[in-house]
């Protein structure tokens, strides 16, 4: 009896999983994602306490006389045990309270929020434009493979890939902002209270830098995946049926190239979220990366925690999303197993 019930349960569970592979993937990955975030918060908190000194000393710097350090420690509740501090932070987060920034003395969310918005706009802009250009050029290179356009794109993208983003950024600044023309701002100064999209000119150079950095990867992956599709038997069959080249490419070749390309786009979005630090520093762009660097300097634990959690959540989300999209684009894996 008992054995049968167990088997029955196992069968039911497996069936649910098999019937809804996408939902199962999304739900299970989300749960693991939440565990990941919890682990990240513990690790970050531990790392910030392992570092020598504390926020009070970091904030006061050379003026950190014992009396002043003590006063600030009391103000910041740094006199409690590490466990207490972590517990206070965690319970606060569960109630939607991310703590008070040690350095700025305002809620951490108010420090991170505007920067997050600025970075999100930059990443979204660069991500969308970079993807459109990368996929378009990749498809072009695949269709014209072996031709002059393909060769040029191969050489240029290989060259660009080897340039770090600060080199690309500095080159753009020299050409468009300081030495040759003065048409774009060299530094992304955004007045407080306003946002990056209210000052669109400040988005141009950092945005273009990021686009230049990600396009080659997407281009090369699209090219490879499209070529693979173009050389498949079913495509040959479709071509022999006399379908128009446009229809061939858009309906038969590109959709099959989606899964690998989506993975690369996902990876590039993740790169953007992390690699944006360099570009933000170069352009003094008031984004989340620059904010994180400042917060680490100040040992501003609430701001570090919030920023890292947001970045980690973004990683988890993009990973799940790109897996789901890949699945949706692969009918063989998407449909319930029989």
């Amino acid at each position, binding site marked *: 009896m008992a054995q049968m019930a167990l088997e029955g349960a196992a069968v039911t569970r497996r069936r649910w999983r098999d019937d809804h592979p996408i939902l199962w993937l999304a739900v299970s990955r989300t749960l693991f994602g939440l565990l990941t975030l919890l682990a990240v918060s513990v690790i970050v908190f531990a790392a910030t306490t392992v570092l*020598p000194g504390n926020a009070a000393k970091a904030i*006061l710097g*050379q*003026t950190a006389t014992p009396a002043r350090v003590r006063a600030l420690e009391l103000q910041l509740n740094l006199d409690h045990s590490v466990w207490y501090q972590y517990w206070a932070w965690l319970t606060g987060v569960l109630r939607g309270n991310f703590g008070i920034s040690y*350095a700025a003395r305002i809620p951490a969310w108010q420090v991170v929020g505007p920067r997050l918005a600025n970075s999100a706009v930059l990443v979204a802009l660069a991500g969308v434009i970079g993807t459109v250009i990368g996929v378009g050029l990749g498809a072009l290179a695949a269709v014209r493979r072996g031709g002059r356009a393909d060769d040029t794109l191969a050489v240029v993208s290989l060259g660009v890939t080897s340039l770090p983003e600060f080199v690309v950024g500095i080159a753009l600044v020299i050409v468009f902002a300081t030495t040759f023309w003065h048409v774009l701002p060299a*530094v992304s100064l955004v007045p407080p209270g306003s946002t990056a999209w209210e000052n669109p000119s400040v988005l141009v150079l950092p945005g273009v830098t990021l686009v230049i950095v990600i396009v080659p990867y997407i281009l090369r992956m699209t090219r490879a995946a499209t070529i693979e599709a173009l050389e498949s038997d079913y495509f040959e069959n479709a071509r022999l049926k006399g379908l128009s080249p446009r229809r061939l490419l858009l309906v038969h070749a590109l959709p099959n190239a989606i899964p690998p390309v989506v993975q690369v786009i996902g990876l590039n979005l993740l790169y953007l979220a992390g690699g944006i630090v360099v570009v933000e*520093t170069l352009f003094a762009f008031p984004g989340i990366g620059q904010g994180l660097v*400042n917060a680490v*300097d100040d040992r*501003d634990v609430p701001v570090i925690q919030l920023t890292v959690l947001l970045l980690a959540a973004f990683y988890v989300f993009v990973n799940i999303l790109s897996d789901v999209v890949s699945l949706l684009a692969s009918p063989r894996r998407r449909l319930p197993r029989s």
Partner: protein
Amino acid sequence: MDRQRHLVRGASARDRSRPADAGQGRGLGRREFLRYAAAGATVLGAGSALAACGGSSSSPGPGGSATAGKPKRGGTLTLGAQGGASNDNLDAHNPLTNADYPRIFALYSALVTLDTNAKVVNVLADEITSNKDATVWTVKIKSGVETHKGKTFGAKDVLYSLRRISNAKTPFPGAAVLTPLDLQNARVLNATTLQLPCKTPFSTFVDSLIDPFCLMVPEGYDPKSPDGTGPFMYKSFTPGVRSEFPRHPNYFENGKPYADDLIITDIPDEQSQVNALLGGQVNLINFLSSDSLAALQNGAVNVVISKTGGWNPITMRVDMAPFSDVRVRQAMKLIIDRPQMLDLVFGGHGRIGNDVFGYYDPLYDHSLPQRHQDIEQAKSLLKAAGHENLTVTLTTSAGIGQGIVKTAQVFAQQAKAAGVTVNVNAVTASTWFGQDYLKVPFGQDYWFYLPYLVNVPQVTIPGGAFNTPHYDNPAYTSLYKQALATTDESLKADLAHQMQKIDYNDGGLIIPYFPPVIDATAKNVHGVVQSPSFPISNYDWASIWID
């Protein structure tokens, strides 16, 4: 990536306020001085600044040069400031980052300041005098000075400021230079006169007031809505990002300030600062390294390179081996090729040091022989001390200041010749200030210029808050106490010279050079002259104008 936070620490004093001195230091206001300076001034283009700095340094002053022409009213000064962070704040007595100094010097005025020749001159003060043994000071301030919010600034506000700085609960950094004052028993004699008795003789009171932590605020001051007597007034401020200060229309110096607005925007990265200036987004930038000179000289901008009295010591703890042996300390001082170090770290700008601080102070002893590299003597001193083939770790951090880590690396290279192995351990700013500062046996430090006797109690007297060498020499301390108790200038000079001889021969501070301060401005910004201490004409915002 570490933000640089060179903080200034202030200290305590010498009397230049005595009537005998009046004609020299106190009669000449900053405005008058600039007018004279303008007469023989040169435009400091990048090229000419280099030439100027290559010249001889026989004159102790940094030599002010202003831009010729009649100052014009109007325009907006925009500073791309280095060293800001999210803990930027506007409290007059609590600057924490390098972007705080340009802001507090705009909002608040001091009683006295340094002019471009490093002389102490009056700002809000009219006259500061003492009794014969420097135990009671009388501060008379200018009358009719108005704050941004329309209050009249008076003697009671001076007392309020001094008490706020020295409050017993959490004293501000400036308290360190004011300790001898007996503020409990201070008395406001009339609207503009304050009497300050002292617990111990305090002949260095006036010099101590140039400490950047001793700015004046009105009674009831609230840093959240700051009121002050400075040339620009508070309008908006976002820490780590930007501040906007319009002109104070009732500033006490007639006709000043010249500009309508002062905007200070934080730019953490030096390359971005240079780009912002070349691209025309800001018209002033500060705290540059010599690495940026090439890019700036190609652009249509002015570069001002100041020989400051700031100093970057290599610090040896005299209470720990191997530096507890004076012969090891002397050997370390002899190992350095100072001109080469200055060339490598600051492109030759600045001036070489002689292991004594307080360069612009009239009490600085220029007769001490300049120490040169002497590897043979260093070797024999080390041998005598039993430390042949010495290995030491020099702990350092880019967070201490401009050129600090490079200095450590050059030192390690030069020490090889004497058989000394120096391991350079560069740590992050938060590690440095959190764990290593004041503790490591062999480290580095950074100071802006302070007069010699103002600096001493902080750095070479037991109990000093920044006594990195842990120096405790009873003879030296006794000389210092005697100097504090005398208003006889020649006796004071004699005592200071004796102390400097001890610094030179016995001290735990190696001062290989006095670093330059490098600023750059747009071509149409005038009035930025060489400074003895802080960037941008010692942040004399009232005197800078745009055409």
